[in-house]
């Protein structure tokens, strides 16, 4: 498969894409999806699984940095898996997204250093736990924002840091309820006949 070095010119630039995948809730499916990336030596920047707006339907958010051509092919490989209902890909402009970060810092430092307090305010951090020995703060936002606070806290003895995967909502999506109804029919209507991408050759799995 020509996944590496796609023809120059057409969609040749690598950028961040967020995949939204609706699936059945099935053991083993995570692995089936993960190996689609690892087989092609593509790094997954972030992966989140969660329930969706529909009971019994699971939702994956996967972030990768690749060319659109590659992302489109990956989406088709993902959709090909039996228990996958639908895979979409979007650029950052097309989604609203957040990542959650937790920071553990020594309580005495915060208590004493005025700068730290100012930093926390600036980054909109909230205290989740306050103990004698340490305090845990939480922020959410884009990567640069959570990253910025680590940098700022490092000189003051950041004890522990963790960041969640990206969760994303597609701006133009009207949800999955109607699509699912169609999928449940023996003869789905043309809107989910998945030939839709043939109509818009360039916007295959986008909404």
């Amino acid at each position, binding site marked *: *498969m020509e996944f590496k070095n796609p*023809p120059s010119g057409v969609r040749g630039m690598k950028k961040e894409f967020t995949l939204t995948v609706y699936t*059945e809730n099935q053991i*083993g499916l995570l692995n089936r999806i993960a190996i689609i990336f690892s087989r092609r030596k593509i790094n997954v920047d972030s992966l989140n699984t969660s329930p969706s707006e529909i009971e019994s339907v699971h939702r994956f958010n996967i972030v990768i940095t690749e060319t659109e051509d590659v992302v489109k*092919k990956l989406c088709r490989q993902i959709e*090909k898996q039996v228990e996958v209902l639908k895979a979409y890909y979007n650029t950052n402009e097309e989604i609203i997204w957040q990542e959650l970060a937790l920071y553990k810092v020594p309580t005495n430092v915060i208590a004493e250093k005025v700068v730290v307090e100012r930093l926390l305010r600036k980054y909109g951090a909230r205290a989740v736990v306050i103990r004698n020995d340490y305090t845990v703060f939480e922020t959410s936002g884009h990567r640069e924002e959570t990253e910025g606070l680590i940098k700022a806290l490092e000189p003051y003895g950041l004890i522990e840091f963790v960041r969640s995967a990206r969760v994303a909502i597609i701006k133009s999506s009207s949800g999955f309820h109607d699509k699912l109804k169609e999928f449940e029919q023996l003869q789905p209507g043309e809107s989910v*006949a998945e030939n839709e991408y*043939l109509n818009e050759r360039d916007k295959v799995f986008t909404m």
Partner: protein
Amino acid sequence: METLAIQKEQPAVSNKTTTISGSQAVLEAFIAEGVETIFGYPGGAIMPIYDALYDYNEKLKHILVRHEQGGIHAAQGFARASGKVGVVFATSGPGATNLVTGLADAQIDSTPLVCITGQVFAHLLGTDAFQETDVINITTPVTKWNYQITDATEIPSVMAKAFHIAQTGRPGPVLIDITKNAQLQKFEYSGYTKMEHLRSYRPKPIVRKEYIEQAAKLINAAQKPFVIWGQGVILGGAEKEFQAFIEKSGIPAAWTILGESAIPTSHPLNVGMLGMHGNYAPNVLTNDCDVLIAIGMRFDDRVTGRLDKYAKQAQIIHLDIDPAEIDKNVKVTIPVWGDCKETLPVLTELVERKNHSQWLQKFKELEQKEVEEVIFEEQNPSTEIMTMGEVIKVMNELTGGNAIIVTDVGQHQMVACRYVKFNQTRSNITSGGLGTMGFALPAAIGAKFGAPERTVITIAGDGGIQMTIQELGTIMQNEVDVKILILNNHFLGMVRQWQQLFNDKRYSFVDIASPDYVTVAKAYNIPGRSISNRADLKDALSEMLNHKGAYLLEVIVGKENNVFPMVPQGCSVSEIRLK
């Protein structure tokens, strides 16, 4: 047991239930799905199923193979010859891991299989129990779907799902791993219902006429249209629809090795084989046509050669059932997503009746060149030692093109695909995408069970035959009538050819010794003969074909013969070499 099978005849699910074991439920599923033949090998973790099988002897024929790889290749041969699902049993651990090559082969060649593996008791999962391997994770990349059952009540619905997935859409292998406790577990069984629909799986796309109309427009305007077809035509059972399409549109058509035999070799519009060792004309003219119509094929690199020099001048129409294939390797102008059994008749309706005689003439001219420079000498050699091509030529005269040919992998495979004549579909069984040496002998066993009324000839090299030669035991025990033709060039020929052409003849470990095959066959009670003189060829082949039952014939052929034409790796199809 009797009662259960009878109950099956009754429509759908009755509210009457019977208490049966998980193992019985597996076998009841087979019967409901029309399975008659199972290829397998027992072991600890699948013993409850084998115990149940003891009582189903009348309804299910179990063929004990000599190695699980042999079992799965046999199931593949069965599926390819019959169009039905091939079924395999293997035990946990080594039994299951021995299936992996066959699963990968079936996955890449879209062969419908349902494999059942035994697994350790559910409470032992993850404890490194005796013969425990993580079969689901090992086989995930090489199955269309797989699933582990730990509770017997799941068996009827999971089996129904397995058969549905294996044989619909683009077919493929399914593996069901069943823990021993589930096989033993008794449960209230209320009958078996076949699966017809799964909301997360859409095997059959809706046919969109708009695209077919656009395709027809392109085809009608084309001066030099060219059809290339693959196994999709056979898997879709669309041979007639395909033939009607090319006959009405008058378009020359060439095949991938898995598509071969969909229409007769002698059809006037059949212009031969594509790809690395394919025919000269279809390779060269791929880069000359104006509209390329790809039907049920996936632009494998062995077919396309160098992609950035592949049919760049042409508008491309791609008919395929699998949307992931569209634009995967070759960017197409018009995609026609669908089952070609449905899309082709619509297309045929819309295309104008034409005959592209001038264009076809071009194929004829280049074919003549190939005949003069390659084919004639290969089939009528001036050398004392025989060539593979002449063996095939004589074989064609004797079979009339009516046999099923099961080839292994290497030079003999390419020569066989190039020269064997076929009159009927589902007659060329070979490992295409994976190129699995050792495939032929067991696959031929399966093919014979899949098409018992037909002559089955396996053609193998001296390398490949030794990879699964243990299956002679299966042939002996089950009296399987397969004809085994070994083309012995005393080398791992195809690798030797590459070493000669590309590594300055540095023959690195391609010199392979053979046992006395006739003696080996004799030990298995299979008659055989070895010949090295041309004068004996026809007689020996007739003897093989006329013999009732299995027969092994070894033909000693030239040691350093090469297969030509050849598109060297990394070259364009139009850079195909005749020598």
